[in-house]
């Protein structure tokens, strides 16, 4: 078993599925000889050839539109959109076609494609390279939206995404692409796309997060433990469809819930989770639900991006407030 970073785990999962299934194709901007700007597809063109791993012209809408055409004819396209900030021209294709093709044709045609997209802030990138707009995609019926938070989950979730019969938006938290290694066995085993992962059990507060923010959330949990506050940390992993059952089970135990996300607050996924808890489990709450999130502002350019991003400190403050609530 090799110790791998998340980006290496993603590369390994792609390689595994390219070997296992000849209908898998990988394409996008700079994914060929260059191996992707983050190196997710490094070495794949060498191993599988230019017809299965190829650079496309610089046209996001056509990259996704083309994936739809390929997927409809029984190929398995894996498209890379270089940064989330550039996916918006392709939202038309994702929303109007990829997410609808199965329904529109009553199952005659389907759209089993994967769109891989690096997202999120914290790497001192240029303007338009740091946003977290996952809830836009979570709002679209017909999609699965998956976000890993560790190398092992990136491997297993990406395998599952590639094997899924429906369109999957696979959002990669680029801030933690190279943040630590995990031992990963290249066994091609998928992780489930319909459940959250409990990363730490606790009885006082449920901290719900996903992607890179899991890092701050776990950090906060460790610091809170020192103060005698025992928090449970849940990684959503698949944000659409949402496994609310696991969240409710946790909140029934803890009675307190804090949702942490990097995305802007309004209509972020935290709002959906809060609403679902209010609908289904309001009587288990001992304190108001809190959201520790990015702000409803433009993501600041990198000199000030840390001011925007939720920190372990903000999470700790929210946790203390929740414990003190009477």
């Amino acid at each position: 078993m090799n110790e791998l970073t998340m980006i290496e785990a993603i590369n390994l999962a792609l390689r595994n599925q390219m070997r296992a299934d000849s209908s898998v194709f990988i394409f996008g901007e700079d994914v060929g000889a260059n191996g992707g700007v983050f190196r997710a597809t490094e070495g794949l063109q060498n191993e599988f050839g230019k017809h299965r791993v190829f650079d496309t012209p610089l046209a996001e809408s056509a990259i996704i539109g083309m994936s739809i055409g390929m997927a409809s004819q029984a190929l398995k396209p894996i498209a890379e959109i270089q940064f989330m900030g550039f996916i918006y021209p392709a939202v038309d294709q994702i929303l109007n076609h990829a997410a609808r093709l199965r329904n529109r044709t009553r199952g005659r045609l389907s759209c089993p494609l994967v769109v891989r997209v690096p997202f999120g802030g914290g790497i001192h990138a240029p303007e338009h390279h740091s946003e977290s707009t996952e809830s836009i995609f979570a709002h679209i019926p017909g999609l699965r939206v998956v976000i890993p938070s560790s190398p092992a989950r990136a491997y297993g979730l990406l395998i599952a995404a590639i094997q899924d019969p429906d369109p999957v938006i696979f959002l990669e938290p680029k801030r933690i692409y190279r943040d630590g290694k995990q031992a990963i066995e290249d066994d091609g085993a998928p992780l489930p796309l319909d459940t959250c992962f409990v990363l730490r059990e606790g009885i006082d507060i449920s901290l719900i997060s996903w992607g890179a923010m899991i890092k701050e959330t776990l950090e906060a949990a460790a610091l809170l433990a020192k103060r005698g506050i025992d928090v449970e940390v849940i990684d959503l992993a698949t944000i659409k469809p949402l496994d609310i059952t696991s969240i409710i089970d946790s909140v029934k135990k803890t009675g307190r819930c804090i949702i942490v996300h990097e995305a802007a607050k309004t209509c972020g996924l935290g709002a959906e989770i809060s609403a679902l808890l209010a609908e289904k489990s309001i009587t288990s709450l001992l304190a108001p639900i809190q959201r520790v999130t990015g702000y409803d502002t433009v993501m600041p350019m990198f000199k000030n991006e840390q001011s925007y991003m939720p920190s372990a400190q903000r999470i700790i403050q929210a946790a203390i407030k929740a414990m003190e609530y009477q």
Partner: protein
Amino acid sequence: MITNEYPDIEFRQFLDIHGNLLQALPEHLDNRDQLLDIYQVLVTTRLFDEIAVNLQRTGMLGTYAQSMGQEAIGTAIGKEMLANDVFIPYYRDVATQIQRGVLLEEILLYWGGDERGSCFSQQAKDFPLCVPIATQFCHAIGVAFALKQQSQGSVAVVTGGDGATSKGDFYEALNIAGAMSLPCLFVINNNQWAISVPIQQQTASKTIAHKAYAAGITAIQIDGNDPIAMLVGVKQALQQIRQTGKPFFIEAISYRICNHTTADDASRYMQQSLLDEAIQKEPLLRYKKFLEQQYQWNEKDDKKLYKKCQQKVDRAVNKYKNTKPQDSAEFFDYMYQDLPNDLAEQKQDFLEGLKRHE
């Protein structure tokens, strides 16, 4: 002053507006039965269009997009495509679809607001029609890529209107088809109007075909009201794509002698004189004259053929009217291959809501 000289694009025509042959009929088309077969598709499409509008006017169909006056384009595409090719239509393609196994009653179901109209029972791979303008061109290049892998010699055929050629997806798809050498036939129905905006306001390009030229794709213009020219042009284009593996582009010049859809009133923006002039050039009239001159076709023959086509259309209308409504909860069932838990819960709520109303 710096100026650019652009090459002229070839313009193809076989029949003048009076149905006279301007050049010799290709041997493969000089066959009365085959020519009548083509006439049947033209007439069936026209009659279907008329009945669809009537159904809409009487509340039995939703908004419908006619193809009146543009039937020659779809007829030629459907005639010349092979079974293994894949058709990616826009929304004035009845003539092509009915030759590819799509049933008239399915087309009515679609415009009647029922998704089962795109679940073609006799056609596995063709796309359903495409409402968001120009997005279909990008699907076509993906289909073409798949065909290149799976079925050498097969072609993805995609259609669109003149308005669609203003959109980014059109340019992106053309550019990729050219750059990646994909077996894709683009056919633009230049019917001169994008709802109310005439082509002169849509582009300063010398022709629409020049847009393909810029992407390195061979392009021709064809008189889209001339069924013979369309048949010959589409056949040649498909042959060339099968041989070279490279894309091809046809700008078919027609005229929308009808409203954009049943929700539109073209008299608000289209001058009557333009319409009158266009009607003189429309394909069915021209083709009938051609048959009269070359194949001793007469009024009696014509009436007989119209009757036969009308019966076919009427049968489809009956089937459409007698189609049982789909299960009201069916709209939950095709969002994913397997219904996720959250959606299953919503479906349950919906079904319980129905029960409470009973």
